[in-house]
């Protein structure tokens, strides 16, 4: 591990800004979802009412967890089918200046599932596969809706945790509408303008053709990028307009946009933690979880950075090959050479090690999956960190909702396992954690390893599965593990290296994404529903403290031991052994 002041300072500054944003964002979320006055009321309230009037939604009618979940499923499946239809018919639809042909069924299925589950796994290059209409009506639509669905699900689960009476969790359609109108749209409009200012294109024209200095004709892909980019980050979608994703200068042109994009990924997640504490009546409850995930985030960011800055030790030593003597200087030179040092393979020179590893940590901590560097090219340990982040359920700041309720699941498990040690049956926020709650939380816990390890184990011995990996040995295992981890975790970031655009991977991946989204959220909604109707026992000196450092530490312990250790055997044969082999001088 090697650390530089520059890299650590970037992590610190990013974290500090996030810390400052948490409370205001959280308070705004309270206003949106507790139907308090927001600044946009005069303009948006009539629009909101119009939507209810058109769709026949009764604003004050609340749903129990089942009705809420069914509404969500109906909405998501309808959106999924719509996207599938658009993809298959895009050659016959307008806004296709580059004349992209219809998308192949397996890929269309994979992509439709991918975007409707907030995964945004992309087995294609956007600029050469999707028409502008598909990008805007199909993909960008889902960037909004799948993000909003994630947020409102988290809000609904939180309501189950904190409500004092009744079994209802809110109204899905109202929550969804308010989330879109008051939360996502305003920020996206401002954000898109910010990106345009920083140099991100926003146009309906086709690709620009320019003559390069050498006199060659070069085609430069353009499009309505800025508007897509902001929701891609804010909604922790991560599906890039371009194949190069956030490494592309038109998606992420400057270090400033890089910082802001990372903040977009985390702010709603962090804000939801504050929201949770606020509506639970004690913000310390939210801060305790914030503390737990902050630890996980900082630890991951520092390790990932340290591993990458250290570089590949094989390149440090001089190698005499047949033709020449090769050695790479991987040391960090700040002023003299302005050399980032470390393992720069697959990373943008604009971002260097610090901004790349921080971005990799952030995008996998939350369920974003946008990348500004190629995780496949990371050192084994550097690449294991993003994979582990996703495998834990992207609970670190929680992305837009999905990780947040994963974190609540771990909090419930932590309370259940250790809570007995204070001599009372476990309770969280004054509500007893009993049979039904434990059943649902354990079911949620089971889903991730089931899908990740199950599909990976199958693919790794299935001849076609193995044939698609580009590196043999442990790295190949990492590639497959990462792919199913990313899809199950609805992250969508690619380790690359695996040629996953085959019917096998498209279909199994589609199922992994569906299992990861709905196999997880349905039990958690049931958990919220079970808690909603429970009496709240007032806290006293005898009740388990769920605030403070001790509880944060407990949650971290449970996440690592119950959540992470499951993957240890598989990782031992993947990234861990690869790292050890690298130290021993063997690469793949």
């Amino acid at each position, binding site marked *: 591990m090697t650390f530089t002041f520059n890299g650590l300072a970037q992590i610190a500054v990013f974290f500090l800004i996030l810390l400052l944003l948490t409370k205001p964002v959280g308070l705004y979320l309270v206003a949106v979802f507790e139907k308090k006055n927001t600044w946009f009321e005069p303009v948006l309230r009539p629009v909101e009412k119009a939507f209810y009037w058109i769709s026949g939604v009764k604003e004050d009618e609340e749903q129990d967890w089942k009705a809420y979940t069914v509404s969500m499923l109906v909405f998501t499946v309808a959106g999924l089918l719509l996207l599938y239809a658009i993809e298959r018919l895009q050659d016959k639809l307008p806004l296709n200046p580059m004349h992209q042909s219809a998308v192949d069924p397996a890929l269309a299925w994979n992509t439709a599932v991918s975007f409707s589950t907030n995964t945004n796994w992309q087995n294609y290059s956007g600029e050469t596969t999707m028409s502008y209409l598909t990008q805007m009506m199909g993909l960008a639509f889902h960037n909004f809706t799948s993000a909003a669905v994630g947020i409102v699900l988290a809000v609904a689960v939180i309501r189950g945790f904190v409500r004092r009476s009744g079994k209802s969790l809110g109204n899905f359609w109202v929550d969804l509408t308010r989330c879109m109108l008051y939360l996502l749209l305003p920020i996206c409009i401002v954000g898109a303008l910010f990106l345009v200012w920083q140099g991100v294109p926003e146009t309906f024209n086709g690709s620009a053709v320019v003559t390069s200095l050498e006199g060659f004709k070069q085609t430069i892909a353009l499009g309505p990028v800025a508007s897509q980019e902001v929701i891609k980050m804010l909604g922790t979608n991560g599906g890039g307009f371009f194949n190069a994703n956030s490494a592309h200068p038109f998606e992420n042109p400057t270090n400033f946009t890089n910082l802001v994009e990372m903040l977009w990924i985390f702010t709603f997640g962090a804000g939801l933690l504050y929201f949770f504490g606020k509506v639970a009546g004690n913000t310390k409850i939210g801060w305790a979880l914030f503390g737990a995930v902050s630890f996980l985030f900082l630890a991951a960011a520092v390790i990932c950075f340290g591993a990458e800055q250290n570089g590949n030790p094989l390149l440090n030593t001089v190698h005499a090959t047949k033709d020449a003597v090769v050695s790479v200087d991987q040391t960090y030179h700040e002023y003299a050479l302005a050399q980032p040092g470390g393992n720069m393979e697959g990373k943008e020179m604009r971002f260097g090690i610090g901004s790349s590893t921080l971005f990799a940590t952030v995008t996998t901590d939350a369920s974003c999956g946008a990348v500004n560097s190629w995780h496949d090219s990371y050192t084994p340990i550097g690449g294991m960190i993003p994979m582990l982040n996703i495998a834990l359920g992207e609970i670190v700041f929680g992305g837009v909702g999905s990780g947040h309720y994963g974190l609540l699941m771990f909090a419930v498990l932590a309370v259940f396992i250790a809570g*007995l040690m204070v001599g*009372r049956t476990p309770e969280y926020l004054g509500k007893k954690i009993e049979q039904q709650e434990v059943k649902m939380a354990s079911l949620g816990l*089971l889903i991730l390893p089931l899908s990740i390890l*199950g599909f990976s184990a199958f693919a790794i011995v299935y001849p076609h599965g193995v044939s698609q990996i580009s590196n043999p040995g442990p790295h190949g295992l990492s590639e497959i593990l990462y792919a199913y981890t990313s899809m199950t975790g609805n992250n969508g970031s690619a380790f690359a290296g695996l040629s996953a655009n085959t019917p096998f991977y498209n279909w199994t991946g589609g199922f992994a994404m569906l299992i990861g989204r709905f196999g997880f959220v349905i039990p958690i909604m049931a958990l919220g529903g079970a808690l909603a109707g429970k009496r709240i026992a007032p806290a006293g000196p005898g009740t388990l*403290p769920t605030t403070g450092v001790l509880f944060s530490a407990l949650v971290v*312990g449970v996440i690592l031991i119950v959540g992470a250790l499951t993957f240890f055997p*598989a990782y031992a*044969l993947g990234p861990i052994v690869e790292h050890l082999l690298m130290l021993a001088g063997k690469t793949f």
Partner: protein
Amino acid sequence: MNQSMNVQVPQAAPPSQQGRIGRRQTTVRQPRQNLSLFEPKILGRAVIDAFKKLDPRVQARNPVMFVVEVGSAVTTIEWVRSLIDPHLQGQQGFVLAVTLWLWFTVLFANFAEAMAEGRGKAQADTLRRARTETPAKRLAPGTTDYAPGMPFESVGAPQLRKGDLVLVEAGDAIPSDGEIVAGVASVDESAITGESAPVIRESGGDRSAVTGGTKVLSDWIIVRITSNPGETFLDRMIALVEGANRQKTPNEIALNILLAVLTIIFLLAVVTLEPFAIYSGNPVSITALVALLVCLIPTTIGGLLSAIGIAGMDRLVQRNVLAMSGRAVEAAGDVDVLLLDKTGTITLGNRMAHEFIPVNGTTIDELAEAAMLSSMPDETPEGRSIVVLARDTYHQNEPHDNGAVTFIPFSATTRMSGVDLPGREVRKGASDAVLAWATARKASTPADLQPTVERIARAGGTPLVVAETRSGAKPRILGVIYLKDIVKTGMRERFDQLRKMGIRTVMITGDNPLTAKAIADEAGVDDFLAQATPETKMKLIREQQAGGRLVAMTGDGTNDAPALAQADVGVAMNTGTQAAKEAGNMVDLDSNPTKLIEIVEVGKQLLITRGALTTFSIANDVAKYFAIIPAVFVATFPQLQALNVMQLRTPHSAILSAVIFNALIIIALIPLALRGVKYRAVGAGRLLRDNLLIYGVGGIILPFVGIKIIDVILAALHLA
């Protein structure tokens, strides 16, 4: 006890309501049987039971141990295969060792459960001996009175049915549970309670219930049988201590679900490891996979879980409390509010005369003489204490009983007692009652009476007003007797402890609010309910429960039954009525209301033990991964030796050490599981921190040390 809440009684309750005469606060009970934890008798039986429990149908109830048993069977087959297959010859010793230790793991867990059951079974044996075999004396239906030599039919106890009438005379055993319809007798209940001092049982009121298996020592009673054979209290008690139909408690069920899911997750992790290993070029042997699986699944808590539950119930039995369900024991740990009856729990059962305060210019001697006179025939402790005070402190001579004295006993309607002599009437009792009595006889109310009464009441005392009429003199009110409630020593400290545990105490009393407040302050309880009636008590419980709190209470009277049923933990006194015992979910055989505090502690201890061992078990996994994963793959990737942080000698030794540790830890923790983790009355925050350090952090570190030690021993013995 209930005499304090029936009505506002400033007078002593009649003796029949005192139940066990004069022993409640003086006798300290010893546990019924001082069975040490590892009694050879129990040990022997437990070893045999451990093998009996290998039956897969028994194991299937515990998913974690069932997986271990299946794993043991699989490795046994592997071992047989290794004997036949020449390719596996080198593995024989290793596979056999792993197989044996896996079987031991199952046996150890069975043994733990059998040990916990053993103590109960030993107790059940003793109880069975109490089941009477002597014939019962069945009377003709409708018999209500006793006549010497009355005819009866001799039948065996099992033939008795509900509603039968039986006669029980001195020296007879009571054949079954019942209600006394006539007579009074002293009864030896030691077979049930372990307490040798006899108790009085009589028809009518709250002391009319008798229990089958107890023995009448003197006099006779006619009993209406209330239980059919097999449903008696003794039968239920035997079933309870034996744990025959032990139902899993709600938290235990929830924990079992979590353990089952964790087992599935680890099964998944281990099963998928094989394809990964095949891809990596070195399939893992089935024995190693099973060993890894068994080490990872939570066998420690899985193996000890039921033992912890049984031992918790057993700890209550040791304290002479019978819990009708495990659910109640768990609820006891969760209790937020304790409703404690003032009398007998917070204060000594009886109020004592403390001072005579004359009013209206009466002399102290006049008052003392009248007070003594009125109390001479009064056999209540309060009455006796007045006589003692008058004699010893006010130097009054005891008057001679010339036979002309008529005693007017206390009754709930008159709320006063006294004596009638020729030409003289003396009354003492509740101030308003005596005042009404005196006013009716045209006595004037002295100006200084009311202030005196209020002062005593405010100080927590009970004022008894004394008045008299004499022929030829104007009836007058003489003064006030100050009866003082004596708060038991050490109660304040107990309540402070409870407060630290997060439990509020509410004192229930029939006294007026002023008196109640004074005693509440003196005893240090958090709150009180004055002038309590069964209705207000019920209302209080409902209010607390609506606020999300769990309520525990004790009771013994029939009018307590609804509240006992409503409370989350209702402890009925064994001396109480059948209705009370049926309404509550626990019975205290000692009939000691202070026991409630111990019951709460037992409940908490049970939960803490369960949580501590769960945490410990899960934390253990870290070390086991580091023992087994490098051992399994080091042949393919020698570099994985770097993960072998414990520096275990060989892969076989590493795997075996982890399996042995996993088995031995169950044995090592049996005493803890049976005795329970000690509960200290400190705040939940400190308790969590301390227990997390011991069982969480300790649970991570200990196996690293333990596995290493076993590895060293194995190497020294050249076993692996």
